[in-house]
């Protein structure tokens, strides 16, 4: 250390101020004197300049300067050390940290914004997961309500309802549940007072409703005698049905309404928000009577039970499995290979894909959060390195290593707390955006996407975690720095090589995570574009659709009704413009197993899975589906005529490769005791299908609607931009056929198609947001590290230029340095992204995880952003002044 520096320290050490202030004052005076020395030396020679500096320091006026402690009463160094562990010390750390962060507003703002985005996005995702999975049912101890189902793995059946017999067998033998009931979802036509309406509901046993412990808001719940055969039909209304249809009239309790054409007495109204078991707006009693049925026949139901206090799921599973084995032994015919599945309600009701998707998104957002923390850690590291001297002086003046490390952690904590506040606002905006994007999506009834107190707790936790993750590295680096090394070093701490290496590693880490996220974002974006530009193979624009379900009459009268309906719509809208189908193409394909005549299949599982629709003759004209070979389904294909089918191109490639399908016979129910065989008469192009179990362009079988028995149908009518009028005409046409019959799900074909793709749109959009945020943060991180490391190398650059290097050479040198980090980070990230995309490829649509275009876009984007982040520091390096650098030696 120079003599004058030591002297200055000694003088200031005698002042009556805190160690922090002493360090700051020494720093300030030292800079002043250094600058003066640099200016005087060339004019009057270095030793004369040195003398002048020394004379200033030895000025008694400096020693006796009456500098009072500015921020706290005078205290000795020893006392302040003792206090550093108390509350006062922490309060001082906060004050000092706050001032020091304010001193560098640019970096501070960047760090806060990065963290706020990370915390905000993580919170949005957590809110979605919390509202869907974790919060659970809004009932007393809702997590103890279990759903009991069966599965038959040997037949490839992961999910089966319970047969009536199995339900009673479990119910009567089990001791794990305090209540054990059954339900089955239904959709009924409600009529009577006003226009008829189609209502989703459930048939439930009395126990199934009491499992929830919810009480009716009006009237009473079901009793066991409501389920008895021959008892009067009763019905319980949901709050929204009571409000909308009966105008909150409490006298409706005790009155009769018509449900599926039958008189039913209203006995109660459930409280607001109650829609158990799934979006139910009405409940009917479930009559189950196994006595007259062979084992396995009759109504299939889902079991639902509430665990007894202190009883666990594991115990219940073990007990019910035992019962299932006994049933299998007693009734091998019906129950061979059948296993029982006991799951918490929420887990059982949500599809596995949704589960996987939500957790995949959470993992992705976790990566964004990590990138944000890494970013902040990097900014703090750079600060720590440029403050190496300040830290060393503080240490020299008696600050312990813990005190120094704590100071850095406190600064990270202040950053995180500010970021958490801002992040909560980001989250609020994000949740609002999510709700807006999914406004027409029907979520399970218990879903509730708000910033719950638990979510805010999560934000606070995330902030603490962020401060730990991002503060701990700089804290350790700062505390470990070698005092004498730093103080000896003239060049603003080039001894920070260690932290430089650490920063580089962090940047590579950041780049890895960001490029992995960007690969995901690029692949989902491409999936979305593919989906949007999908040519479904049938007309989807200007089609109005509606659905009708018959609840009365036998199968022949129902067939007669649909024949009449077909005639009427053809007469009203024209033969080429209307179609009656079992369900709508696109979203309504039924998943069936197909058998080809003459082939044998050991298990149901071995039969190929196909999509199935039944259509009226108008289908091919109305949906503009041209035949590739053979003939379409025509008006001659009616009841009594030989049964026919049309298959898709994909079907003939997949199921009948190398064969002429025309004339072959297939069956969709080959395992029934009376299978129906149909003859293939035509081949059509493959149509788009959006169905969880099917490929988007699957093997398809189309049969003749009028050759089968259906109790429900979708009607599709081509419009000329007059959808509303067409919908109204259809409604009055149906009313003229049956006054009690509602037409529901009235919507355009394109609406029904886009509704099926919302998860990809919403979560794809979120993913893209994640990717962009990560990209921005990685660029900021790269910029900060490059700016910092070039400033460290200013002298080296100056010397290089003095020795004849051109500016371009220096730029190249800096960029090469950055390029190494970019190449390593991006390569690792792309590999990581591809591996992750491979695991989640179910969410992709017509994109391979290794899609070269998507990967090229990611690499190019990151390279461009990375280079842009480095160009400014590189250019700054070229301005290094050779003479100044040399003089400093």
């Amino acid at each position: 250390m120079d003599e004058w520096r030591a002297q200055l320290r000694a003088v200031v050490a005698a002042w009556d101020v805190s160690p922090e202030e002493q360090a700051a004052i020494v720093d300030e005076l030292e800079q002043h004197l250094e600058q003066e020395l640099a200016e005087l030396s060339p004019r009057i020679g270095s030793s004369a300049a040195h003398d002048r500096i020394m004379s200033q320091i030895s000025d008694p006026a400096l020693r006796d300067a009456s500098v009072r402690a500015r921020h706290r009463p005078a205290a000795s160094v020893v006392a302040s050390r003792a206090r550093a562990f108390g509350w006062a010390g922490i309060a001082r750390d906060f004050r000092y940290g706050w001032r020091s962060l304010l001193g560098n507003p640019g970096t501070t703002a960047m760090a806060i914004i990065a963290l706020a985005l990370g915390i905000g996005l993580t919170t949005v995702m957590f809110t979605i997961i919390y509202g869907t999975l974790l919060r659970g049912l809004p009932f007393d101890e809702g997590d103890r309500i279990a759903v009991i189902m069966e599965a038959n793995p040997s037949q490839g059946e992961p999910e089966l309802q319970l047969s009536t017999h199995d339900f009673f067998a479990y119910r009567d033998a089990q001791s794990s549940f305090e209540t054990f009931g059954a339900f089955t979802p239904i959709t009924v036509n409600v009529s009577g007072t006003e226009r008829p309406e189609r209502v989703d509901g459930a048939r439930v046993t009395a126990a199934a409703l009491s499992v929830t412990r919810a009480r009716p808001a009006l009237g009473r719940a079901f009793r066991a005698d409501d389920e008895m055969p021959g008892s009067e039909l009763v019905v319980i209304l949901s709050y929204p049905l009571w409000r909308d249809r009966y105008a909150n009239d409490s006298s409706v309790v005790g009155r009769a309404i018509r449900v599926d054409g039958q008189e039913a007495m209203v006995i109660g109204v459930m409280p607001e928000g109650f829609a158990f078991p799934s979006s139910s707006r009405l409940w009917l009693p479930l009559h189950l009577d196994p006595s007259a049925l062979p084992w396995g026949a009759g109504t299939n139901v889902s079991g639902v039970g509430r665990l007894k206090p202190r009883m666990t799921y594991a115990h219940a599973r073990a007990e019910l499995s035992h019962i299932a084995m006994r049933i299998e032994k007693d009734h091998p015919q019906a129950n061979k290979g059948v296993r029982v599945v006991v799951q918490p309600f929420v887990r059982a009701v949500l599809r596995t894909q949704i589960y996987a998707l939500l957790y995949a998104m959470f993992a992705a957002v976790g990566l964004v959060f990590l990138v944000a923390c890494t970013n902040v850690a990097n900014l703090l590291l750079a600060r720590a390195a440029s403050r190496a001297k300040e830290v060393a002086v503080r240490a020299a003046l008696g600050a312990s290593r813990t005190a120094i490390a704590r100071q850095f952690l406190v600064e990270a904590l202040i950053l995180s707390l500010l970021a958490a506040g801002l992040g909560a606002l980001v989250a609020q905006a994000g949740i609002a955006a999510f709700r807006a994007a999914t406004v027409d999506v029907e979520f399970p009834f218990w879903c509730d996407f708000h910033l719950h107190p638990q979510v805010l707790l999560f934000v606070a936790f995330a902030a603490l975690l962020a401060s730990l993750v991002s503060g701990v590295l700089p804290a350790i680096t700062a505390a470990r720095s070698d005092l004498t090394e730093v103080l000896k070093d003239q060049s603003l701490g080039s001894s920070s090589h260690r932290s430089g290496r650490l920063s580089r590693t962090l940047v590579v880490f950041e780049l890895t995570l960001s490029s992995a996220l960007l690969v995901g974002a690029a692949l989902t974006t491409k999936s979305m574009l593919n989906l949007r530009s999908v040519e479904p193979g049938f007309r989807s624009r200007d089609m109005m659709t509606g659905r009708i379900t018959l609840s009365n009459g036998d199968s022949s009268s129902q067939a007669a009704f649909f024949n009449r309906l077909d005639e009427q719509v053809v007469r009203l809208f024209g033969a080429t413009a209307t179609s009656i189908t079992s369900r709508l193409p696109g979203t309504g394909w039924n998943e069936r197993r197909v058998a080809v005549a003459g082939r044998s299949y050991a298990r149901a599982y071995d039969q190929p899975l196909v999509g199935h629709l039944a259509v009226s003759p108008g289908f091919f004209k109305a949906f503009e589906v041209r035949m590739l070979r053979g003939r379409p389904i025509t008006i001659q294909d009616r009841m009594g005529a030989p049964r026919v089918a049309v298959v898709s191109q994909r079907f003939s490639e997949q199921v009948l490769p190398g064969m002429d399908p025309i004339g072959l016979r297939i069956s969709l129910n080959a395992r029934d005791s009376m299978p129906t065989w149909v003859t293939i008469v035509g081949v059509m192009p493959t149509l788009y299908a959006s169905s969880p179990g099917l490929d988007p362009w699957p093997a398809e079988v189309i049969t003749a609607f009028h050759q089968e028995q259906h109790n429900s149908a979708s009607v599709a009518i081509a419009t000329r931009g007059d959808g509303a009028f067409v919908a109204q005409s259809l409604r009055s046409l149906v009313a003229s056929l049956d006054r009690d019959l509602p037409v529901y799900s009235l919507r355009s074909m394109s609406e029904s198609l886009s509704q099926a793709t919302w998860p990809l749109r919403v979560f794809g959009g979120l993913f893209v947001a994640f990717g962009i945020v990560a990209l921005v943060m990685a660029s900021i991180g790269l910029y900060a590290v490059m700016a910092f490391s070039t400033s460290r190398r200013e002298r080296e650059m100056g010397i290089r230029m003095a020795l004849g290097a051109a500016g371009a050479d220096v730029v190249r040198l800096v960029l090469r340095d950055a390029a190494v980090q970019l190449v390593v980070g991006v390569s690792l990230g792309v590999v990581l992204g591809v591996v992750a995309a491979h695991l989640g490829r179910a969410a992709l649509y017509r994109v391979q995880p290794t899609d070269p275009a998507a990967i090229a876009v990611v690499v190019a984007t990151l390279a461009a952003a990375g280079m842009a982040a480095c160009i400014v520091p590189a250019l700054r390096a070229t301005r290094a002044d050779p003479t100044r650098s040399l003089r400093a030696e």
Partner: protein
Amino acid sequence: MLGSDLKKGSAEFLVLSLLEHERRHGYELNKLIESRSKGVLTFHIASLYPMLYRMEDRGWIIGRWVEKTGERRRRFYAITAAGRRALEKLRHGWLEFAAAVAQVTGVTYG
């Protein structure tokens, strides 16, 4: 060089004036005083910094460490609202004083 008493009394006035429109660090303040007074007024650190700290204590100015990426942090001083009021008063007093001196001695500036 000017007498030290007179210098001392006017030093705070000088600093406040220099900070009126811009924040500056200590070295810059000293250089400005030196160059604008054509070398007549100079300060040593022994007088400049203790004075700055006193002024900060009084709430006339506020010092903040400012860091720029890649540069060493520096302490910049800015004038506060109280500092502006003090500056007004000093300016007023100075004018009165100068006018009085001029009247008594017949010396005018310029």
